[in-house]
């Protein structure tokens, strides 16, 4: 007997899974989403935050480019509060292949990506820290996207329409009846026991982990995760996104996200999507490459480095470097391939196109289920959309205006006690989860001042639920894993001062074994 019955089980709480859940809910299809950790703890929480204009793909992957610009416009409409409308530039450096400039303009036109050439004076006015050594500059409607906010919005909207979400419920097996999956077995990690979710359909939205999920279900699916490293600088450096105008390659983009700038990326093929290690040489390489566009980055302060696993799908016979694999997405029907008759896998794609991926997937599923409701996700705005675009100064303005916001617990990211208390009251007790929800500990001190304050608040609101010093230790160690690759200069001063606070003043000694996996942003 199943513990829970539903029409569709969605596996994976990243951007795709949450977008699918919302799409199903809007079409009146009952669904349960299961996620092994917290929302956005896989690739959707480990990316650079770029709302693609498509410019990056116009020459190399025109299909992706068109998908990007369509979805860019859609997200600006349905979720403007998750978007900072920064705009973006493509800068052609003198050492680049100069003919790429004309090719870029032509490809933008073909793919429908708006593109305007700026004079060098206009460009420098817009981005004062740009190198003076420029050949040409093009403006495109890039932006930045808060992925966690978007996923939170999808889930809030879906659950308000009856969908259910089970976090920290990894899939451990599938109950089959012939070639049909009858139920999904998940492990409730808090309770330490398994639960069975009876269902008619399973939608595998596990991204880079989709191969593992499909295999567990008796299907066959080969993912080719591409590991990409990124570097977080302590301040923004640029007002909008800055891209190197050449074929996509390593270290060619600077994305200003909230208070920081993220430099991206590298691409290393890997077999294990949980391998998110960063080689210090990748850090050095990206700083040097991005400093070609914005020289101040060469001597700037680095906060941390992290990597994520791109959910790339490689058809069995394809060969070559993983950057050559298309960024477009595929809906795979396992009944036509290899296995269960009621399993669909959605693979490939990018965070920018998550809504469109969900639409195509649910179109396929709805047809199979005989549901004829049209997709409404491109029209119905998310809760919070009335706020309009996110602006960098919004959090500060809110804190300054509203006395009831009270104490600032995280000064770097302007996180108040009231917001932490509200999140804890809703059941979040792990500091690392509060970090993703509230941006706690993202700033220059990397949690040194807010970490223990937040641990105390959690224990005060929910006594005994999460041992505060162990909670704090996990948080500090998580922050450290990202910093460790990039400690020098002012970062080294900060690291040793933080160490002097926690080991010196507070005499906190390591109690726990290092965690096996790391989560990031």
């Amino acid at each position, binding site marked *: 007997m199943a513990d829970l019955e539903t029409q569709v089980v969605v596996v994976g709480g990243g951007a795709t899974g949450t977008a699918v859940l919302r799409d199903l809910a809007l079409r009146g299809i009952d669904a349960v989403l299961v996620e092994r950790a917290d929302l956005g703890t896989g690739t959707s929480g480990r990316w650079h935050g770029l709302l693609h204009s498509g410019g990056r793909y116009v020459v190399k992957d025109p299909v992706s480019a068109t998908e990007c610009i369509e979805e860019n416009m859609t997200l600006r409409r349905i979720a403007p509060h998750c978007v900072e409308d920064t705009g973006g530039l493509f800068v052609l450096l003198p050492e680049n292949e100069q003919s790429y400039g004309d090719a870029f303009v032509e490809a933008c036109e073909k793919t429908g990506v708006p593109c305007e050439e700026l004079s060098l004076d206009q460009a420098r006015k817009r981005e004062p820290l740009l190198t003076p050594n420029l050949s040409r500059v093009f403006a495109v409607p890039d932006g930045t996207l808060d992925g966690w906010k978007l996923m939170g919005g999808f889930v809030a909207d879906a659950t308000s329409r009856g969908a259910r979400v089970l976090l920290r419920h990894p899939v451990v097996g599938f109950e089959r009846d012939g070639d049909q999956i009858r139920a999904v077995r998940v492990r409730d990690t808090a309770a330490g026991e398994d639960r069975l979710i009876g269902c008619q359909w399973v939608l595998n939205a596990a991204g880079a982990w989709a191969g593992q999920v499909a295999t567990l279900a008796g299907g066959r699916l080969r993912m080719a995760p591409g590991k990409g490293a990124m570097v977080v600088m302590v301040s923004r450096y640029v007002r909008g996104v800055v891209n190197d105008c050449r074929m996509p390659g390593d270290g060619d983009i600077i994305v200003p996200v909230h208070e920081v700038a993220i430099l991206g990326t590298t691409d290393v093929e890997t077999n294990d999507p949980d391998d998110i290690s960063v080689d210090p040489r990748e850090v050095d390489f990206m700083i040097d490459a991005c400093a070609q566009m914005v020289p101040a980055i060469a001597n700037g302060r680095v906060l941390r480095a992290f990597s994520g696993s791109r959910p790339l799908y490689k058809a069995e016979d394809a060969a070559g470097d993983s950057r050559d694999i298309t960024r477009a997405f595929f809906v795979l029907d396992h009944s036509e391939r290899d296995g269960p008759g009621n399993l669909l896998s959605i693979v490939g794609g990018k965070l920018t196109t998550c809504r469109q991926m969900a639409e195509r997937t649910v179109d396929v599923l709805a047809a199979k289920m005989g549901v004829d409701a049209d997709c409404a996700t491109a029209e119905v705005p998310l809760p919070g959309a009335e706020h309009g675009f996110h602006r960098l100064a919004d959090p500060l303005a809110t804190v300054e205006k509203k006395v009831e916001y009270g104490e600032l*617990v995280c000064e770097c990211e302007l996180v108040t006690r009231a917001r932490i208390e509200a999140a804890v009251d809703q059941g979040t007790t792990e500091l690392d989860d509060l970090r993703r929800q509230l941006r706690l500990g993202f700033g220059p001190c990397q949690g040194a001042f807010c970490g223990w304050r937040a641990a105390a608040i959690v224990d005060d609101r929910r006594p005994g639920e999460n041992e505060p010093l162990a909670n704090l230790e996990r948080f500090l160690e998580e922050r450290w894993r990202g910093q460790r690759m990039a400690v020098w200069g002012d970062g080294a001063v900060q690291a040793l001062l933080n*160490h002097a606070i926690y080991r010196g003043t507070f005499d906190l000694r390591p109690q726990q074994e290092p965690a096996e996996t790391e989560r990031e942003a």
Partner: protein
Amino acid sequence: MRADVVVVGAGPAGLAAAVALAEAGRQVRIIARGNGFTHWGPGAVDVLARVGGKEVGRPLDGVPELPARHPYRLLEDEVLRRAIDRFQRLAAAAGLAHEGSLDQNRRQVTALGTLRPTCLVPAPAARPLAGRVAVVGFAGFRDFAAGLCARGLRDAGYQASVQAVELPSWSHERHFTAVDLARAIDDAGFRSRLADRLAGATRDADVAVVPAVLGLAAGHEAWADLERRTGIALVEAALAPPSVPGLRLYAAWLARLRELGVRLQLGFPVTGLEVGDGRVTAVVTEGASRPIVTRCNEVVLATGGVAGRGIQAQRDGSLVEVVAGLPVQGFADRMHYLADRFLDDHPLGAAGVVVDAELRPLDTTGKPALDGLRCVGSLLADHDPTAEGSREGIALVTATRVAELLAAAPV
């Protein structure tokens, strides 16, 4: 400009060295980029709390187990005794009595409810936690959480309960620090109203733990006054920076320097030395429009390690001593000077300049690098002030040693 001895750095080592040198009759000037560890630390005197990760009960018992070139091994135990005596006298004269001695380490309560091992603690942190302990939080003060502190104390076997006290009304910014609150408590009216509330909240307790914010301007007087008014023993718990006990000590050193006629130039990073005939002749300071040269006979570097910015860690993994370019005992690349776990010891914390027993920095051949130059405090190699719990002890013993060495030298 001219000085006899220039001390570079205004942390515990530089301040203590300047006082000791001036008391020994030298004419001294301090030039520093900014404040040092006084403002960051827990406001106690750590001498030697751990060796190889194990606690030592009596600091001097741990010294033989330290590496051969550790500053405590380079210097006689007697120098450390004199340094601690000298510190106790200065602190007491400034109304900042410290409890404890080199005979036994003791414990200091922290905001996390841990009991950190240290050697000397200021009197407001020194009352025994005997009987019923009330841990008192002040509403709206974010740097102390009574529940967390009490929980730690209970885990350590103490009978600790939690009490909340609303602060009397006072004029402050919405987000106030320990220093803001300490200044408010300096005001007699505010303090008297706070005392009434504290007394009410601690009626059933034998001792009360409070955040280390009980007054700043008049040494330990505000603490003593609150004890008198409330009739209960008060124990200040160490907080994250800024450190009120550290600021009190900084003020005491500053007052003594003023009495001795020592000038303190803060906000002037020293960028280099001038040298003639193998001997230092001047220090060069970054000025607003041009370098400022201060001629002198001796230079004492008290610029700190990597944390104090006396040493700069570079992206390529090299470590650069910022004033004289002295060789730094370091590591091959940046991945090797850090531990995988944040809370473990980091080799970078022990990076420093190798000196001889007269605190002269050595060049790569093992000979004194430059006449007239000495190094003190966390700048020295072969010790890790955080991992060992030795920061203030190293600062004081090297400061005393340098003053004793230079006292005999001609002015």
